[in-house]
């Protein structure tokens, strides 16, 4: 039985992943901004078989609260061995280009806040010498493109940070997974026309759960994004910069 902390628990991917943990009989603590939404999810997870579901209301951009939040979650669950960092926003690139305060908030949410939590969790798992952390980054972090490079840069930073933490904790056998979803059919992408590359959140969730259980390092979800991003990364910059991406 795991004791699982889910940060950004009201996201569609996080909720689907929580359902898998629930069906395995794991104990779960959900963190999000809206109490009523957390409650709706918690009720569902209990009906599906989770022996214990706790909720904590927090704005994860308030980084000074992170340590206290982890203390509280650990106390409620009687320990902590698994964490999913899932919060994020897919901002408006055009607005980011003219409104720096907005862009900074995007970077704060998608990079700084996630990195702060990952760092704090890393210290705790290092001390207890066990644990597993999955961090939801994005294929957008693999190469900057004009259509979403503020989001992409934040996720690139998070990918690098996660890679460093994995390197640091590897000798202790602690799993740190970088999750790179492609297009996922969620409220975050509600405004985007859906093509055949779009995956359902439950498919991505199964991939995340499998990666945690098997102790994987970097996973593209669905898997074919590994191929797509390999090609995207191979295109010479002289050509890449002329593409409308």
């Amino acid at each position, binding site marked *: 039985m795991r004791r699982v902390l889910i940060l950004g628990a009201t996201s*569609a991917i996080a909720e689907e992943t929580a359902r898998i943990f629930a069906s395995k009989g794991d104990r779960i603590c959900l963190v999000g901004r809206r109490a*009523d*939404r957390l409650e*709706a*999810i918690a*009720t*569902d997870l209990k*009906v*599906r078989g989770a022996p214990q579901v706790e909720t904590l209301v927090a704005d994860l951009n308030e980084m000074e609260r992170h340590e206290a939040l982890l203390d509280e979650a650990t106390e409620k669950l009687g320990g902590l061995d698994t964490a999913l960092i899932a919060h994020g926003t897919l901002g408006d690139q055009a607005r980011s280009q003219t409104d720096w305060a907005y862009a900074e908030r995007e970077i704060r949410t998608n990079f700084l806040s996630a990195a702060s939590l990952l760092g704090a969790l890393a210290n705790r798992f290092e001390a207890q010498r066990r644990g597993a952390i999955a961090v939801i980054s994005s294929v957008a972090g693999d190469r900057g493109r004009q259509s979403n490079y503020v989001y992409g840069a934040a996720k690139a930073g998070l990918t690098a940070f996660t890679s460093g933490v994995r390197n640091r904790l590897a000798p202790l056998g602690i799993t740190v997974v970088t999750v790179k979803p492609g297009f996922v059919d969620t*409220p975050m992408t*509600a*405004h*985007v*026309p*859906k093509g055949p590359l779009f995956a359902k959140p439950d498919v991505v969730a199964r991939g995340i759960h499998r990666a945690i259980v098997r102790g994987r390092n970097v996973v593209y979800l669905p898997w074919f994004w590994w191929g797509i991003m390999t090609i995207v990364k191979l295109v010479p910059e002289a050509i890449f910069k002329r593409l409308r991406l």
Partner: protein
Amino acid sequence: MHPDRFESWGRFPRVCKQEVRSLRWRGDPLPAAEGTLLPFGLGRSYGDSCLNEGGTLLSTTGLDRLISFDHTTGVIRLEAGVTLADVLRFAVPRGWFLPVTPGTKFVTVGGAIANDVHGKNHHADGTFGRHVRAFELLRSDGSRLLCTREENAALYRATIGGLGLTGVITWAEIQLRPIHNPLIEAENVRFRNLDEFYEINAASERDYRYTVAWVDVLARGKNLGRGIYTRGNHAAPVTGDLPKLRWTSKITVPLDAPSGSINPLTVRLFNFAYYRRQLRRVRAGLMPYEPFFYPLDAVAKWNRVYGRRGFFQYQCVVPKETEAMRAILETIAASEEASPLVVLKTFGSLPSPGMLSFPREGVTLALDFPNRGERTFRLFERLDELVREAGGALYPAKDARMPPEMFRLSFPNWEEFARHVDPRFSSSFWRRVTTGI
């Protein structure tokens, strides 16, 4: 959300001007939107009852949470966007089954209520609506109404079978049925004509919870109405391990087939093979519940075999005593327009609470027709005539073309129902059948 994916199962009519908003939290108010509103689940209604040209669809599949489940009584409370497939995945391993299920599990609970769906056990258990203990209705004025047989009873009756027009169902409470295992004790019996169907049916309804028949609609003369009768019950407890019966095949129709793939020749070949698939007259055995209830769910997007022009399903109910069903089958056989997908079944006398509920005592026939334009519409008019003479009815969930007069004859309660329609809610179907009043 992009509206392209929001088409009905028959892919006719095609609607281009339609906004979509996703519902994800049952506590949220209705989203701001232009024009009229209509809840949309999985789009398995065949015609235009799940479409809202010029208005907004409220996509409900994000409302997919369970709220409570009582292991001892089998009462489950869940959000309206939970699919019947999800309910089965949850309930079957715990020893419970849907009280009523249509021929696909890819519908939402909200959709099952809004269409007051029926299944192979209508003669024994009535419609889905009979097993809905309570639900919450969110109206456009922001009110949230708990509806049961006692509380807000008129809205309860209007919403069951109410085609999504009375507001959004946010959650519902359903009474499940206890089962011993996921198996069905099933039996197939070949019948040579319509009279034999009625004989076998009369003998089966007492002892079998589930009954349904497939009919070879190309057979005529003394073979008119021949087919295969399927009957079954939930299996008795199995001692020891369950027999290993795998049912995992899942294929997808990848592309639209060319229009005309379903034609008299291909249908004749299929029907010939299907009618003779069993050598003996009776074949019996244990089978998993999926192929018994949902044979077509094994083929995802099967509506593509009808091509880009789409198809119609015609489902009517007529009284058993009349000769109407014979005349309907004769007309269909002579037309050579139908596809092989045909369902013949008798409805029992258990009443539904729904004002606009389709099932009523009699015999119902459902079959698919590829869209061949004017020819197909003219055949439907001839069939309408026979249904009308017999005092029968057509099923809104399957309809894309019935004239307003046919709707009003089918649903004598429609004026009482209309008083409960939410002033901001509407659908392409509702506007079509209420024009000219």
